[in-house]
């Protein structure tokens, strides 16, 4: 009897194993499934697109118009998101839609042939409307093969910010122009004034611990003497130009003078925390979304400014966000995904709402100012004024992932005393090799 029970138990266990090998159709209403298309959306935390309640509201609005499409969402973060996507690609379990920027959608997954061409979304009307805002946005969403791998809906310029009250007390506000630009000379004078005031431990920190936010340190180094990160074709790295080396050498000189600090243990979020708690007087990693999210947690006025440049005309790094579709070989899902993207980005009512949820600006000129008449109007007007200095979107250069790591490494090396020219040449060499390898 015992043996029989044991045998039965074992059989039950074995049978339970077969459930593991199911095709995923169990548990659903098959009749309902026939008429519904299920698509998955993965979002990086672009403003409130990382907030479940907001995204759920958008999906409900979408379902009111398209009740036959079900959207399931997974929320990614910037620390582990790339690993999750990589694992999904290898496991052939990629989502249908993904929300991020051209450096991932176009120059990474698009270049590897994993994404669907979105040319039909880029019709003449959309192309004209977005081009009117910026040709750079259109170019950034297009791969080297001429296919569109991203359909964008929002953009911003990354800036830096100062602690207004500290600068005021230190008498350093006079070094910033009315249009929020400043020269390298005045930047240095402001650093000295803030340092001498003793109001903060150190005026600023060049964070170089990796894990994102690198656009801030890149913008700082390239703006000082108007260097360019890549050539116009985005296939060669050029920070080893005289201007690039001079800019990085300037940062080392400022560090040696005790006016700024390099911190290889800090990532962008650490620097923002130091800025928010008043340990340092400026942040190199600022934008409209940060201004909004830190508003309630700081006891001072974060005052956005452009990166300093010798000629007084900054060239700011931009951020462009939109949707891409992974090619999972299911035409019905691809069509459903396109409908979803069109609704979120182009629907007359939903489109501006989607942009406002990100805290950034619309890529469509026809949307005008979606913040007009809202409590955010004044804050967003400040950031809108930076759009005029939007620089080249070189993030689409192939080999981007290697470049980022090499950039942090290079900053760590010059902090350690390595010759700047030698370090930058090594960095450019690494980047060019990575770009060349990715181009094959």
């Amino acid at each position, binding site marked *: 009897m015992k*043996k029989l029970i*044991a*045998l039965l*138990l*074992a*059989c039950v*266990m*074995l049978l*339970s*194993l077969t459930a593991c090998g199911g095709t995923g159709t169990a548990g659903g209403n098959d009749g309902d499934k026939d008429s519904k298309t299920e698509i998955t959306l993965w979002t990086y935390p672009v403003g409130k697109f990382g907030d479940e309640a907001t995204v759920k509201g958008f999906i409900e609005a979408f379902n009111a118009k398209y009740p036959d499409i079900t959207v399931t969402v997974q929320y990614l973060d910037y620390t582990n998101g*790339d*690993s999750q996507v*990589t*694992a999904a*690609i*290898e496991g052939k379990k990629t989502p249908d839609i993904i929300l991020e920027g051209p450096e991932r959608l176009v120059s990474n997954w698009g270049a*590897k*042939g*994993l994404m669907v061409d979105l040319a039909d979304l880029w019709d003449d009307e959309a192309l004209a409307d977005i081009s009117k805002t910026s040709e750079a946005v259109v170019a950034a969403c297009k791969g080297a093969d001429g296919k569109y791998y991203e359909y964008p809906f929002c953009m911003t310029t990354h800036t830096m910010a100062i602690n207004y009250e500290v600068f005021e007390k230190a008498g350093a506000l006079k070094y910033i122009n009315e249009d929020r630009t400043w020269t390298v000379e005045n930047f240095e004078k402001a650093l000295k004034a803030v340092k001498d005031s003793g109001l903060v*431990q*150190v005026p600023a920190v060049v964070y*170089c*611990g*990796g*894990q994102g936010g690198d656009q801030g340190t890149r913008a700082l180094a390239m703006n000082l003497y108007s260097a360019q990160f890549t050539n116009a074709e985005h296939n060669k790295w050029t920070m080893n130009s005289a201007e690039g080396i001079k800019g990085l050498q300037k940062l080392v000189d400022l560090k040696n003078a005790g006016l700024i600090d390099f*911190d*290889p*243990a*800090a*990532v962008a979020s*650490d620097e923002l925390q*130091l800025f928010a*708690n008043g*340990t*340092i007087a400026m942040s190199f990693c600022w934008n409209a979304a940060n201004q909004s999210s830190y508003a309630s947690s700081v006891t001072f006025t974060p005052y956005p400014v452009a990166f300093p440049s010798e000629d007084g005309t900054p060239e700011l790094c931009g951020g462009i966000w939109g949707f891409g579709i992974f090619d999972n070989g299911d035409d019905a899902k691809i069509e459903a995904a396109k409908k979803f993207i069109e609704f979120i980005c182009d629907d007359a009512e939903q489109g501006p709402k989607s942009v406002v949820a990100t805290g950034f600006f619309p890529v469509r000129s026809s949307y005008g100012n979606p913040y007009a008449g809202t409590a955010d109007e004044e804050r967003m007007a400040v950031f809108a004024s930076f759009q005029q200095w939007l620089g080249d979107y070189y993030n689409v250069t192939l080999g981007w*992932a*290697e470049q980022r*790591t090499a950039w*942090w*490494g290079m900053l*760590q*090396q010059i*902090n*350690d005393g390595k010759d700047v020219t030698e370090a930058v040449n090594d960095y450019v060499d690494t980047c060019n090799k990575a770009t060349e390898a990715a181009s094959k």
Partner: protein
Amino acid sequence: MDMKKVHKRSKALVIRETVVSYIFLAPALFFFLGFVIVPMGMCLVTSFFNYTMTDFTFIGFDNYIRMFQDEVFLKALVNTFIIVGVSVPAVVIFSLWVGASIYKMKAFTRSFYRCIFYLPVVTGTVAVTVVWKWMFNKYTGLFNHVLLGAGIIDERINWLGDERFALACIILILFTTSIGQPIVLYIAALGNVDTSLLEAAEVDGATKLQTFWRITWPSIMPTTLYVLVITMINSFQCYALIQLLTSGGPNNATQTIMYYIYYQAFRLYDYGYGNAMGIFLAIIIAILSAIQFKVTNSGKVD
């Protein structure tokens, strides 16, 4: 004739019991094969390929050759050996010392200490790491605050951002998160040492050191072997701390093989190269585990 019948019946019984045993084993075996053995085999095979998102070309031993020409890998290898070389003996000695100090205490006190030392193990790695990161912070961290206040240092130290200190900080955190289980095991093992042998040794005039070395140490050898192997494997596979604290920096000062495997496979999508490093690491761990088994006499007590 009867004997033959009995033999036949017992053989049938054995077969039936064996079948039942294997059926019971099947689920575990299924998962073990599917999630351990098969991936290991795939890892071995793909390590001989230039395996990226867009390419899958056989390249023989090129990944292995490239490994030993890769300065970052060699640096990671050295760092990993330093971590293992320092943390394994430190964990064993400290755990044994704490275990020996605690196991004779009253049940309540013993449990209290066990809880204290086991806390970092049950607390999530991320939470523990965030606290350590705050304590090591150059500007707002506890260590600099205390050391500056006590006049021990003149200027703030960037603990995790300075090549001279970063790896030591990682080893320290790894140490605190590794000692919990060995301490609990040693307390149990020391409590199980045959007291009659210890009393006999005492009666025979053996010193405390002699008693420990001749009786206690051999008795807890199986536990020591387990602690050695587990701590060594954990130290070789040090990844989460690096990912959360330093990303291998500054200047690869905290780069470990496990983190470099992750970086190559998940950041650069160079799966073949990452797998080659994984195979190399597995071989090293297997060899060192075998040596430990041999040196500690397979954990047997004479």
